[in-house]
């Protein structure tokens, strides 16, 4: 079984982002970038499937520019077999990414696409479902457990108020939750070795001629901020405030 793992390069989750001065975009200059955390879980799961003898090859792919090579190096250092960088002029929307991924799937013919359930920058959580729809494949979303049974895979999904278990017929798209596993640490020697491995580069316009987004960002702003807390000194005072000032008791 061949596995495709898409990896998005996103602002590191510890960074406090802000709008650019003109309020039109998110300020990304000089900001620390990392692989999307959920994609690391997807990678980890793919590697475990290979270690268990269930997968034969793992291919990582990212859509971006040459700067995105770092997340592919990270994936190579973790242990993927090959890496593909698809050059895009402008970050496509989720549908655009799904269309590009579909083209990669046609080229690579994996049986499984393992991806993050959402990207922590735009939090759209759409790409995996869109890809599954475009391919006409079954989808397992928000997955916290994966178990292969021949040509079928049983997945446990996080749903509102609990979990649900589905059995999907391969080939499938699975989007993973953080709870699936704990990604391994990348050792420095591996990172050094990964620097030497080749990265295949493709051009997006050759894969899918027209991926122009019909979504336009008009502006970026801060949400309304809350006033700092009134600091109280006792539970009695708190109860008084909740009763008389806030009126919630």
């Amino acid at each position, binding site marked *: 079984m061949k596995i495709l793992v898409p990896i998005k390069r996103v602002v590191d*989750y510890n960074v*406090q982002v802000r709008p650019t001065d003109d309020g039109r975009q*998110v300020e990304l200059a000089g900001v620390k970038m990392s692989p999307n955390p959920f994609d690391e879980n997807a990678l980890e799961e793919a590697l475990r499937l290979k270690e268990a003898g269930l997968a034969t090859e793992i291919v990582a792919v990212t859509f971006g520019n040459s700067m995105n090579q770092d997340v592919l190096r990270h994936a190579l250092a973790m242990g993927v077999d090959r890496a593909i960088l698809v050059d895009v002029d402008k970050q496509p*929307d*989720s*549908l655009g990414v799904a269309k590009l991924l579909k083209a990669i799937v046609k080229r690579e013919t994996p049986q499984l696409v393992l991806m993050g359930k959402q990207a*922590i*920058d*735009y*939090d*759209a*959580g*759409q790409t995996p*479902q*869109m*890809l*599954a*729809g475009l391919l006409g*494949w*079954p989808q397992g*979303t928000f997955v*916290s457990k994966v178990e292969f049974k021949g040509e079928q895979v049983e997945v446990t999904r*996080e*749903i*509102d*108020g*609990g*979990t*649900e*278990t*589905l*059995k999907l*017929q391969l080939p499938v798209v699975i989007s993973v*939750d*953080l*709870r699936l596993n704990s990604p391994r640490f990348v050792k420095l020697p591996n990172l050094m070795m990964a620097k030497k491995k080749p990265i295949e580069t493709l051009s997006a316009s050759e894969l899918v001629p027209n991926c122009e987004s*019909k*979504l*336009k*960002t*008009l*502006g*970026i*702003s*801060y*949400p309304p901020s*809350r*006033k700092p*807390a*009134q*600091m*109280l*000194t006792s*539970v009695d005072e*708190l*109860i008084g405030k*909740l009763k008389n000032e*806030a009126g*919630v*008791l």
Partner: protein
Amino acid sequence: MSILVLAEHDGQKIKISTLQAIGAAKQMGSPVHLLIVGNQIREVVADAQSLENVDKVLVAEASRFNHLLAEDVAPLVAMIATDYQALVAAHTSFARDVLPRTAALLDVAMISDVLEIHSPKTFSRPIYAGNLVAMVQSEESIQVLTIRGNRFSPVNNSDSHIAVIEAIDIPDLPINTIWISEDKQASDRPALSTAKVVVSGGRSLGSKEQFESTLGPLAANLGAAIGATRAAVDSGYASNESQVGQTGTQVAPDLYIALGISGSIQHTAGMKDSKVIVAVNLDPDALIFQVADYGLVADLFDVVPQLNNALAKN
């Protein structure tokens, strides 16, 4: 043109999150049609028929809709949605599973977790764990949206209103997914996402036993749901479905009590909409105090029993 809302129900009634989605659709100004998919849904349809602002109830009833699978539902919704200006649902796990797939089948981009509707084509949504808000304009032929329920007023049932019912022809598709089982925690407590009061705990609760024995009685006294941080969930103190935050449940109760929670942006992303926030933390510099209305620098294990005493006296 009209707006199609994809309904969620429990087999008897339409869920509150859907009533909020209809409230959002109403803001876009057009007649609203409600699509109900399921098996043995007569009571649900009867409930839906008297909902304000719903002109028509579309019913897709079949035994294979006993459990709803995205692979099965998305093509059905896509088939119907082409006649509409917009397709709207609440940002629940069901709609997050089904709507992006539907959007892809319609070949249109989608906008998730809409906080505000400025015009029928302009929306605000949170990005970066709700640290920023993006205003997005769409030139798509059909707007496919999931909306943040608690930002919109739910519609009510009305005695004087009866919507038209229309049965939908169901396409017969081969489905490569089998539903196996579901595990939902049965609890006397109110549901986290719609509770009026939420009591939440973090890693500092120390163990599963302490989490339950500390938060349980307080929640009982307040009629509250129990929430948790991811750190608490990962440590096994609380169940997955109690996680509040960017990657968990979004809550907006009248009162949110955060006990021993540091206030990371991933957590506050899920509770900042609460009307009144109380934070108890040992660390006076904890980030949680920046989003709280009332703060107590104290040991939660001292505070909770005192709160229980004071509430018992009330």
